[in-house]
């Protein structure tokens, strides 16, 4: 049973560019959440998708956008990259009714903005 998979594992971009990160949820899961983890910090909630709609959003600017596809996979897009966007981006999946909606995380995408 495949867990949460994310691609790519590492990415290097320059300021002002745009980036797309991808996530496939754990088999059977229907909800995908995205988190940003800066160095030395805990993960910070970006947004959450269910039934192809954004259900909740954290305190992130509109440069951060996302999408969920009918197969429950998801993309995170970041426009006009800033140096401060350098971080580990984590995707988590969950299923309503599964052990209190525990979120299962992928290994993340390490984004470096130069």
């Amino acid at each position: 049973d495949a867990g949460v998979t994310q691609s790519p594992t590492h990415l290097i971009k320059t300021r002002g560019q745009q980036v797309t990160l991808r996530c496939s949820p754990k088999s059977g899961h229907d909800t995908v959440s995205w988190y940003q983890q800066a160095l030395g910090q805990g993960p910070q909630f970006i947004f959450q998708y269910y039934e192809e709609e954004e259900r909740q959003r954290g305190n992130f600017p509109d440069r951060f956008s996302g999408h969920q596809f009918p197969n429950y996979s998801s993309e995170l897009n970041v426009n006009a990259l800033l140096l401060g966007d350098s971080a580990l981006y984590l995707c988590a999946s969950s299923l309503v009714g599964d052990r209190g909606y525990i979120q299962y995380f992928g290994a993340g995408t390490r984004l470096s903005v130069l």
Partner: protein
Amino acid sequence: DQQVKQNSPSLSVQEGRISILNCDYTNSMFDYFLWYKKYPAEGPTFLISISSIKDKNEDGRFTVFLNKSAKHLSLHIVPSQPGDSAVYFCAASASWNTGFQKLVFGTGTRLLVSP
């Protein structure tokens, strides 16, 4: 505004002893709490959780205690093993019953268990 705080950045324990990791929160609306463990180059792995209707939950060597009046929870690992060496994150949610959880994480505690 750090709503979930882990004030100890690191903890060193000998193998076989008890490890106690602490977490404090400020938002009284939080009603579900989780602990995750993270190894380098891996994503956080779910360890154990507790809802606000309980004050203790146990799973093998791991026990989580919740003190709602003090807005404090702790994770006890007994006995500690070298393989437990990792960063431990405390997380909280105010919406677990709706299915749409927004997890708020602490900054983590690095546990080192020496043989």
